[in-house]
């Protein structure tokens, strides 16, 4: 079978992707930074860096530190704010032949509403991805995404402020991610993406100071893949809406772990740093895998895990 003949198309509810490989939020800039290496049109989609109502400078450095097979980041959700994003970044994104997901966040429900509203009717934004891992300032800093009720309320707030499909991005830092997933589904989300980073920290034993100025940060990369695959596996079995798998994907084989477990698409984050061509190689690898196995459509392997 010719790998070029394999149909990699996948659907996330109303969204049709040419292939299941999406660049993850915060790791691919606004799409332009890698464009000399990765033609954006070759991707299934791009999720831009998390956008808030106001511009945010982010945390003091150091913001990143390498850990075994992973990295911690405490960027602090630095971004140019929704207004500048729409003015400066969206026109270019609009020209791309790929799905553009805008990742949004807030620290209050109204902030989520306001950011979501800003994209109402705007061309070039195919979906919103809602980051609910952010601390909720009204609830003593516990993340929105750690409480099913709050997660549902954020979901409703965004849904009521937008005409775009809404994907809610779940945090892994919870006792039972399926509870959150079910609450978000019941609130009407079109899809789920998981996982966001796992809370972690590292210490410089020479200075006896945390390696991140922010003390703790989010762990990403291959180290967390087993945790992500398991959470995706569990969530897929608890909800009906489509799930995007994220966490430590470096190669096609890794993406397949998620797809076979039931994810309809995947996002590639840290791997972009390790190998800027990772997304392209994963797409090619998926083609080769299907061809080798005689599978005409990638969608035929989604959720085929034998247990």
């Amino acid at each position, binding site marked *: 079978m010719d790998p070029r003949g394999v149909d990699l198309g996948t659907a996330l509810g109303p969204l049709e992707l040419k292939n299941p490989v999406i660049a993850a939020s915060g790791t691919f*800039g606004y799409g332009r930074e890698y464009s000399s290496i990765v033609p954006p049109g070759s991707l299934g989609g791009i999720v831009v860096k998390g956008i808030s109502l106001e511009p945010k400078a*982010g945390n*003091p450095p150091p913001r990143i530190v390498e850990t075994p097979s992973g990295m911690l980041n405490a960027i602090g959700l630095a971004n140019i704010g929704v207004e500048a994003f729409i003015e400066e970044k969206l026109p270019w994104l609009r020209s791309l032949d790929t799905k553009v997901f805008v990742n949004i966040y807030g620290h209050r429900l109204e902030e989520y509403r306001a950011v979501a509203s800003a994209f109402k009717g705007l061309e070039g934004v195919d979906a919103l991805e809602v980051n609910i891992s952010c601390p909720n300032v009204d609830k003593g800093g516990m993340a929105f995404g750690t409480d099913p009720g709050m997660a549902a309320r954020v979901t409703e707030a965004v849904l009521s402020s937008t005409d775009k499909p809404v994907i809610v991005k779940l945090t892994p830092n919870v006792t039972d991610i399926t509870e959150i997933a079910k609450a978000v589904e019941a609130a009407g989300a079109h899809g789920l993406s998981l996982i966001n980073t796992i809370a972690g920290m590292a210490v410089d034993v020479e200075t006896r100071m945390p390696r991140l100025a922010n003390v703790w940060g989010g762990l990403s*990369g291959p180290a967390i893949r087993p945790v992500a695959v398991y959470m995706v596996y569990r969530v897929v079995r608890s909800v009906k809406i489509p799930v995007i798998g994220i966490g430590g994907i470096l190669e096609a084989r890794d993406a397949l772990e998620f797809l076979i477990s039931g994810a309809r698409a995947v996002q590639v984050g840290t791997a972009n740093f390790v190998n800027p061509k990772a997304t392209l190689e994963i797409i090619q690898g998926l083609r080769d895998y299907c061809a080798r196995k005689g599978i005409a459509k990638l969608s035929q392997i989604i959720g085929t895990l034998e247990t």
Partner: protein
Amino acid sequence: MRVDLVKAHIAANGSVAKDTYLMELRLETEEFLAAPGQFVMLRILDTTDPLLRRAFSICSLIKPNVIQIMYRVVGKGTRLMKDMKEEETLELLGPLGNGFQGPERGKKAVLVSGGIGVAPLFFLASRLKPHDLKFIAGYGSKEDVVPPGLLGLEEGSVLFATEDGSCGYHGLVTELFEAELNKTLSRQLQVYCCGPWEMLKKLAHICYEYDLDCQVSLESAMACGVGACQGCAVKASASYPPDYFHVCSHGPVFSSSDIDWEG
């Protein structure tokens, strides 16, 4: 700016000073358009530890597709690098960042390095005429000193300062720099420097006092190297609207007055 991802074949890799190595890389590209001050990011192994690429300044461009980097062995990645043999291959991303500017016509360049910070300045020196340039290199001790001849500079062209006095001026390179300044106050100077943060901070301060334009090449922990992750932040001086620069895409070379040296 065109960033490329290319295979880099090790053409040579050997020690040039204590814990300091020079690696020559033949790139699988026709022409590598790199300017002094720019850097590359290397993926050392295919495995996931070390995971991230390592950043190294370009130390020289000896053919259109052959570069040298000079590195100090400090951790896991550089330890693996020093044991790599000729013919082994690394994956290189580059050229990255914005290099040194100028000097303006009529200005003499003063290059000041601390330790391995000498690497990008070697490249810069190779592009300047010897009589337009003064190169002051600081090291801890004699055994750290990289002989300028190895990089094609004349042996006598670099002034040394060592902290223990075992070679050249006995003291900090910033002191030697200030002493040299006092000799040449009449001249129009453009200062370029690279080294540890505390040294750059001192230099920035001296240049501010002497009203000299000073360009510094900074380091910062990096993930992407291309401006996509916002990891490599450095605080901008109060006069600037953005609170943080990204060392990889806004720098690594900055005007010293743009940086908040307390931040």
